[in-house]
Structure formats: structure tokens, C-alpha cells
């Protein structure tokens, strides 16, 4: 799709121009795109950078596994039972609207400083959207799927695992996409406070030292990762909603 590619490039170019413009207006607060990329390249080449990136990646991967696993474990059974879903949905939604940052001191007290607190904080961010989308995905399925499964003598568990869950996959992927970005947010916030390792820690460190190029370089790298992953999930979602391709 050449037009799609052209559009993307156009958006990128406008973004870079705007960035450069802000740099001219406030050179002390924002490094130029070229300067940021140079600093990022420098960091990527430095052996001291990789343990931090690895720490963040590991914490994020664990959080994502817990958020998706837990979200499906909560959302799919709720979706099976309309009454439970009606009770569960407002609880999930109000949990989601809770400003989770206020819970961070509690999480630190429970899990202590380190990896487990970050993972817990990332997980509570991502779990709820995955659960809500999985629940609604199952609720919205035509009732005839469950009836057909019963007529083919499937157990309740096989009905869920072999029919309802696959049927709800497009919705689940949407939940995972949204869960993905908020889990990343949670892990990052977790690293920014009371952490000695990870990209969030590097970012806070750079803010403390007023090392603007490093700040911007970390933001660029994390942002590029998040945008790419989101685009990939969005493409997958698109394919699933309009299957078969």
C-alpha cells in the first residue's frame, strides 16, 4: 500500500519538523531530533545501557504475561455468565478508573523495592482492560456457538477453550493492545520511583542531572518501541476482525 506508507512518512516528517521547531523555541528543555538520535546511538553502543534495558524488558514481559493471563482468567468466565458479568463489569470499570499511582506506596510495602514491585504495578495496569475486553468479547458472541458446542457434546471447559475463547479472539486482541500500552506505562512509572535499575531509573537520573539529551533519547527509544508494538497489534487486530484476509 504505497499511499499508506506515504501517509506514515508524511506524519513522521511533520512530527520531526514540529520537534525541531520546539527545539528552536526552547533549546534548554528539548534536544534537537538529530542530537537526540546521536545520543540514543551513543547509549545503544554503551555496555552500561543494556543491563537497564534488559531489566525493563524483563519486568515488562513478566507484567504482560501476568496481565494477559490474569485478565483472561477473570474476563472469560465472567463472560460466560451474564449475571456475573453484570455484577463484575462496574467493579472492573471502577478499578480501572482508580488512579493506580496512589496504590504504589502500598505495592512497595507489600513487594519491597525491586523487580516484583514493578511487575505488580505493571500487572495491575494491564489486567483490567484485558479482562473487560475478554468478558465483553464472550458476552457478544452469538448464543448459537455455545448451543452448537453443547449439541456436539463438549464439556463446559472445552466449550470455553475450543469455541468461545477462539471466537472472542479479535476482541481479546483489542484488550491486549490496550493492556500492552498501560502495562508499559505501569512498569515505567514503577521504575521511576524507588528503583535502582531500568530505563525508568535512567530517565529519573537524567532528570536529576538535567541531562536533557539522555532524557529525550530514552523517551524516543521507549516511544518508538511502544508505537511499533501498537501498530503491529493493530494490524493483527484488523486482520482478525476482517478475517479471512
Amino acid at each position, binding site marked *: 500500500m504505497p499511499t499508506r506508507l506515504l501517509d506514515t512518512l508524511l506524519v513522521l516528517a511533520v512530527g520531526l519538523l514540529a520537534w525541531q521547531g520546539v527545539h528552536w523555541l526552547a533549546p534548554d528543555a528539548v534536544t534537537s531530533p538529530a542530537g537526540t538520535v546521536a545520543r540514543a546511538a551513543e547509549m545503544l553502543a554503551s555496555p552500561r545501557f543494556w543491563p537497564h534495558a534488559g531489566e525493563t524488558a524483563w519486568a515488562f514481559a513478566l507484567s504482560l504475561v501476568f496481565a494477559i493471563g490474569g485478565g483472561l482468567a477473570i474476563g472469560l468466565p465472567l463472560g460466560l455468565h451474564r449475571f456475573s458479568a453484570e455484577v463484575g463489569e462496574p467493579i472492573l470499570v471502577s478499578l480501572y478508573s482508580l488512579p493506580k499511582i496512589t496504590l504504589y506506596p502500598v505495592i512497595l510495602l507489600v513487594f519491597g523495592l525491586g523487580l516484583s514491585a514493578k511487575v505488580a504495578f505493571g500487572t495491575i495496569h494491564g489486567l483490567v482492560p484485558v479482562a473487560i475486553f475478554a468478558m465483553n468479547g464472550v458476552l457478544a458472541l452469538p448464543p*448459537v456457538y455455545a448451543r*452448537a458446542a*453443547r449439541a*456436539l457434546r463438549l464439556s463446559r471447559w472445552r466449550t470455553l477453550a*475450543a469455541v468461545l475463547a477462539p471466537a472472542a479472539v479479535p476482541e481479546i486482541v483489542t484488550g491486549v493492545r490496550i493492556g500492552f500500552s498501560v502495562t508499559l506505562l505501569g512498569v515505567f512509572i514503577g521504575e521511576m520511583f524507588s528503583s535502582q535499575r531500568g530505563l525508568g531509573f535512567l530517565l529519573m537520573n537524567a532528570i536529576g542531572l538535567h541531562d536533557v539529551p539522555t532524557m529525550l533519547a530514552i523517551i524516543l527509544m521507549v516511544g518508538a518501541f511502544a508505537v511499533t508494538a501498537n501498530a503491529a497489534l493493530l494490524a493483527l487486530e484488523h486482520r482478525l476482525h476482517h478475517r479471512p484476509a
Partner: protein
Amino acid sequence: MTVRPLTRPAAATAPHEIHARLAGVTRTYGAVGGRGGVHALGPVDIALRRGEFYSVIGPSGCGKSTLLDVLSGLSRPSAGTIVFEGRPVDGAVPDGVGVVFQEDASFPWMTVRDNIGFGLRENGVDAAEIGRRVDAALALMGLRDFAAAYPPQLSGGMRQRVCIARTLVMQPRLILLDEPFGALDAQTRLIMGDELLRVWRETGATVMLITHALDEAAMLSDRIGVMSARPGRILAEIETGWPRERDSRIAADPGFGAVTSRLWGLLREESLRAIGAQAPAGADRA
């Protein structure tokens, strides 16, 4: 066309051997402690003979689909008993009973082939046997060229064939169909009716078809149970007397007009009542 039979041919049996029986079956919805609720069905008594094609016809909302639900074991009756091959049916679909629904129940994320083999895989049939049965069903339902397609690429009639094939590979001895052609256009319905007759002959299964179409019931059935407006009861059972080898061209038979006019004679009052019963007065509330 020779196709490997999907069902064991019925053994030489005594005429009118009873294959499934409903006795005093009723269904009430939403009743709490025996009061209130909607009396949807019955009491109904039907004895299905082994190998016959039985249709149930009735006005809209008379409980036809409820009847199929309780007979198949998909839901429990409020009262009465259901027996299939000598064993009571209670809250689960027994082995040997297949159900085809009005709605499209094909799974859009599986190919036609995988859809048809789905029930067999879930019931632990070995792969070679699944392959054989699916191939036979693909041939029987005219789906051979679409084995690798996904249901959303097919027409409504083809998708319903996939659902019928998925039921047939389980080798049901009793096939229950709930207005399976309701969503299809008139010509496709006639063609599908002919195919259903062919399947019925080739498998030797007992068939119960729920329909609201007079001509469909008259064309396809050995016997037709005519239901009353809600709560549905069997008003009369009509024998068509058609030969086993038949198709939709039976509509040209002089007897066909006699059957449909008899059906309409029984149904006209009930259909009027069904429409009238939608007025606010809930005459059938206990």
C-alpha cells in the same frame, strides 16, 4: 453417486418401532416457586418412529423451538419425560442425537473442513477416521470444492450445509433441525429440502424438522405434528403417505394440495390466536 454411509443402516426393525418419545412434556419460563412465568409449551406427547421424517409445524411463538430444545437435551422440561432409544434424556445431548440450528453456527475462524471435523476431534475420534467421515460429508453436501474455504466466504445456504455436515459426521441416529432453512431464499430452501431428503434416505436416520412453512412440512415429511398457539400442544398428526423416494416435485402431486389445505385448516385459527395473543391481556398467565 455412491457415498459411504454416514450412519449405520437401520437394522431390520418392526414397523413403527419407537425411537424417541416425549410424554407429558411442558416447559415454563421464569416461574418462581411454581407461580407466574410464561407457560411456553405443552403438555406434549410425541412418539417418533425409527427412520421417519417428522415435522412439527405451528404458529409463531408456539414453543416449537422449545420443543426441540427439550427433546435434544439442550434444556430440561419443567414436567414430563423424554426417552431416546430407551434411555431418559435429562439436561445433556445424548450420543446419537444431532442438532442443526436456524442461526448460522459455523465457526468463522476454521476452514470448512475443520468445521465439519470439529465435533469428531472434540470427541476423540482418531484422525484417519475423521478424514474419512469428513470426506464423505463434503461429498454428500456438495462442499468438496470449498473444503479449504472459510465460512464468511460462503453464501448462507453453503454455511448451513457446513452445519448440517458437521452434525452428520457424528453419525446421529436422530437429527433435529430447528427451522434450518429459515434464513434462506425460497429457491435455496427447495434445493436444501431435497438435499435433506437425500441425506435422510442415505443415512437412515430419524429426522425431526421444526418449521413454520406449510409447504416445507407437506413436501418433506412422512408425518406432521400440528401445534396450537402458545402454550403449544399437538392438535393433530397428519400422515402424508409419500413414498420414501421423493423430492420437492411432490408439490405437483394432487395429494399435496390436500395435505397443505388440511394443515392450513388446522393452523388458521391458531395463527390468528397467536397474533391476537400478543395483545396486552396475558391470557395464559397462571
